[in-house]
């Protein structure tokens, strides 16, 4: 239990080098448009990002990958890898996740040595799959016997926590405001995981058009501190 807890803390630490530090997933477009400029406007964006996009993509994926690992059904995992990658129409966001998936594997393989991580890396190298951090994270958590709901909520927490850190630097907002938002988001995260439990593959990839347009337009921003 203690070891499991410590491992999760390490994986969810925003200092863990996944590359998430460099990605705003469209937030920077809103910042430059003055649509996100303070704590409240950032909170609204973050809520939409979690509940209208992240939940239906990375959230469902984590949950379904976990189930597939239980059944030793690798085909479903590779299918989800393809689905989650091509459902991202904004190419920067798609590339960001591919890069982060790769980086995440590189850092975690020496730490955990789970065979599934090698298999995933091999398939990425052979260009049979794309690679995605939600899948890597779920493989590790499953390997550590972390329960499914904890796995999904930990992954969502790590994503949200990274975005809060990026908002602190990018908007900027105060460190305390950032922590206040993260704290307030506990309810949203718990709600998201509950909702994911009720969803099926039919709900996969539901997205929000405004978020996507901003993610697409990030490619064309003149001055950027984030890569997506």
């Amino acid at each position, binding site marked *: 239990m203690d070891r499991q807890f410590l491992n999760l803390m390490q994986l969810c630490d925003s200092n863990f080098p996944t590359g998430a530090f460099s990605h705003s997933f469209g937030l920077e477009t809103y910042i430059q448009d003055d649509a996100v400029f303070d704590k409240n406007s950032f909170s*609204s964006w973050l809520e939409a990002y979690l509940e209208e996009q992240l939940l*239906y993509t990375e959230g469902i994926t984590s949950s379904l990958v976990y189930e597939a690992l239980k059944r030793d059904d690798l085909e479903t995992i590779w299918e989800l890898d393809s*689905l989650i990658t091509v459902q991202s*129409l904004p*190419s920067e966001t798609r590339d960001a996740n591919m890069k982060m998936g790769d980086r995440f594997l590189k850092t975690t393989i020496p730490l955990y040595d789970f065979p599934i991580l090698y298999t995933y890396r091999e398939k990425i190298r052979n260009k049979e799959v794309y690679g995605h951090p939600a899948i890597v994270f779920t493989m590790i958590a499953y390997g550590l016997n972390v329960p499914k709901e904890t796995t999904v909520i930990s992954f969502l927490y790590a994503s949200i926590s990274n975005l809060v850190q990026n908002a602190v630097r990018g908007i900027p907002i105060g460190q305390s405001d950032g922590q206040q938002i993260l704290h307030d988001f506990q309810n949203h995260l718990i709600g998201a995981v509950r909702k994911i439990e009720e969803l099926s593959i039919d709900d996969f990839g539901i997205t929000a058009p*405004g978020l*996507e*347009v901003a993610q*697409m337009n990030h490619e064309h921003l003149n001055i950027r501190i984030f890569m997506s």
Partner: protein
Amino acid sequence: MNTWTGNLQLKIENKKGKSIPKDIYFQGAFKLMRPKYFDDSGQPCYFILNPGGGYLDGDRYRMDLNLEEKAELLLTTQAATKVYKTPNQSVIQETNISMGKDSTLEYVPDPIIAYRSADYIQHNNIHMESGATLIYSDILTPGWSPDGSLFSYDNIQVKNQIFMNGRRVVFDHLRLKPNSQDIGGIGLMEGFTHVGSMIVICDQVSKEFMERIKEHYSEDDQKYKMGISSLVIPGFSVRILSHDTQTIEEVFNYIHQTIRKELLQKDVVFLRKY
């Protein structure tokens, strides 16, 4: 179930450079008008007609399109698809498209208008082979409602899946459920009412071509907000939010015609039906 409110099958083959219908079948509330030929390329343009005038509770529509190698088809509708109140069962439209090597499909239907309490689900499954070119667009719009509210429909859900040589290359799933979303808020419709989506898959699409399209629309226009981005294979998707259908149609038409002219060496066509 094999009872469809409307069912349509269309198979096009290329015979000595001319695309001709090999198989046409339609039944119920789907009709095809006689094809038009806009230029001398031999590409037929078919208009789909819904004689019932609109989609009602529990209606189920199915369309199967089959383009053989090098076959070309321009397909559109004769008017907007109107979805009325659907209190019990969603209206479902399912379209399966198979496109042989080097075939070309331009599928640009009129908008879907969802009226009060409408619940509409649309699935498009497209299987393409090497060298095939696809230009697809859809526009989702709210219908007029007596109380003046902008989002009085219950649900519009559009799922597009595209495969190239068996490999999934596009998965696009939009679902607007105004009653359970902050529909006008940040991230969703952001103060707009209409959303358009376009998907182009074409070997001749280059980064430079996309940049030019993007630049054409770079001015700060309050009338719409749009994004364009490349796919995992040559091609791109466009998402656009606006206050009216015409703005989206103009953008899509410009992109469509520019592709016809510059990438496909075809004449510009005018699909205005009114």
